[in-house]
């Protein structure tokens, strides 16, 4: 059992998020008995293509939607029974800015002073200045990047112990995305802070995530520490003849083109022993996601 699997069972350490056997049924889509955990002090990338179930999972975690089964614990508390207590200590950031267009920083700060007991106005204005956000401009006139930054500024100004981000960096330019990733690194320098970040931009998660969970068609395909996943997975580029020698159980899926076959394997060491001819190349999260999504087809082009 890996450390992260221990974390799911709650055995290894206290988790920021524990999702066990979560089920949610819609017409034509089912979130099927999913389980994962985000250990405290870490950032988990929640990866999947559009419609895979990322937002549904996040809505279930935030108690926005009714679930059909399963348990969710946030910061050691039940997400429904201790809802208000939990929400005092977490912050959610969405891909679209939820604040009223007519608000300026001042109105936002006054509103949040009442909402969060631990709201730090001084810290909020410090973040505003650091992000280069104008204090006297209406939020409606902010650019997409500025709107994302003000969401993050508010999320970080009430001492949230857990940030839940749903496609928060989607649609932002690389410069702003990097700035935001730097802020997250800083935020995680406090060991008690954690982040769950859903995204389909895997390059961001390559840079920052400690662990990743792949979801597709409502099912968890893979969950674990990023370094372990990258270490154990590898890509083999081989000819059709070499590929024909491989057993289907030994690889995740294979991408065929006119010249060669790219094969994704999930147990680098075992494959190396069995297929000595194979040249194992390093891979990245994007490739892994792509090959896992096509796992059922096994061979695709």
């Amino acid at each position, binding site marked *: 059992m890996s450390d992260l699997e221990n974390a799911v069972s709650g055995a290894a350490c206290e988790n920021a998020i524990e999702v066990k056997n979560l089920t949610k049924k819609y017409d034509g889509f089912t979130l099927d008995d999913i389980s994962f955990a985000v250990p405290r002090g870490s950032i988990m990338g929640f990866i999947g293509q559009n419609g895979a179930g990322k937002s549904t999972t996040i*809505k279930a975690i*935030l*108690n*926005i*939607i*009714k679930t059909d089964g399963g348990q969710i614990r946030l910061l050691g508390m039940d997400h429904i029974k201790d809802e*208000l*207590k939990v*929400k*005092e200590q*977490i*912050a*959610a950031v*969405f891909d*679209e*800015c*939820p*604040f*009223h267009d*007519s*608000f300026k920083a001042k*109105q936002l700060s*006054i*509103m*949040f*002073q*009442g*909402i*969060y*007991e631990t709201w730090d106005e001084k810290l909020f204005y410090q973040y505003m200045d650091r992000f280069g956000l104008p204090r006297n401009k209406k939020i409606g006139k902010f650019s997409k990047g500025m709107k994302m930054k003000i969401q993050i500024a508010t999320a970080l100004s009430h001492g949230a112990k857990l940030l*839940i981000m749903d496609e928060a960096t989607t649609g932002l330019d690389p410069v702003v995305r990097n700035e935001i990733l730097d802020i997250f690194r800083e935020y995680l320098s406090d060991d008690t802070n954690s982040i769950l970040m859903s995204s389909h931009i895997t390059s961001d998660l390559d840079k920052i995530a400690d662990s990743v969970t792949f979801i597709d068609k409502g099912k968890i395909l893979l969950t674990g520490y990023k370094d372990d996943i990258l270490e154990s997975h590898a890509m083999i580029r081989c000819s059709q003849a070499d590929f024909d020698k491989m057993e289907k159980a030994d690889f995740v899926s294979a991408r065929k083109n006119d010249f060669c076959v790219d094969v994704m394997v999930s147990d680098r060491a075992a494959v190396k022993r069995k297929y000595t001819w194979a040249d194992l190349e390093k891979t990245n999260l994007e490739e892994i996601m792509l090959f896992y999504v096509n796992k059922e087809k096994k061979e695709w082009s």
Partner: protein
Amino acid sequence: MKMRRLGCLLYRELYLSRKSLLTNGVMALSIMILGILVLLSAKHGNLALIPEEYKEAVEEIIFMFSAFLPIYACVAFAISLVESWQFECDRKWKLFRKTIPVSGCEYILVKYILLFAAMGLAIPLSALYMWCSDLIAGTNETGMSIQCILVILLFFMCYSQVFQIFILLFGSMDRAAIAIAILSTVSMIFGFDLLLRDDKLLLGADMMLNDLFASFASFLPQVTAVFLVTTVVSFFLSVKLYERREK
């Protein structure tokens, strides 16, 4: 329930409906000033020069309009707070508000406090106007008028509360407006039917302002009862709708 939280949420509501409050507030005051000027003119100015045979009918019309329009302006001021409810239809805010540590009871209570505060302001404002118009016209109908004001205000407060529920229920200002328009039409048909059954009230040229006031005022107990029931039911329903989770 924390007072600081309520205060900050009240601030949010007032800020969001500030334009509507200001516009309707200014409109109410302007209509009142115009009403007073018209009444003064009818008593001492050019309107007093109308030939005797038309004078009584014209004065009745002037008094009626100058008495009722300011009340409606005050009603518009009070229910302009419903403006802030349209922000509850915003998809992004609807999602976000469920991630903040505010209970449904606190959230809805703030909206009710403001609605009642605005009504509390509209009643003395309308009563003051009626007292002034009594003074100018040399009549003594303020007591009756206050009952009339209460009937109209309570009636519209019931509407605004039902409107709020429709907004939460449908999650759309447009759909809520259609629903309230249908409800208004139906209730107006029944309302006029009730008024016309009143034998003392003769609609037409002989209709007297006093009769109309008296007829309106006679509905005060019923309207108060409906208002109280509506308030209690709509408050708890609003809290339930607010706390409702998506399916």
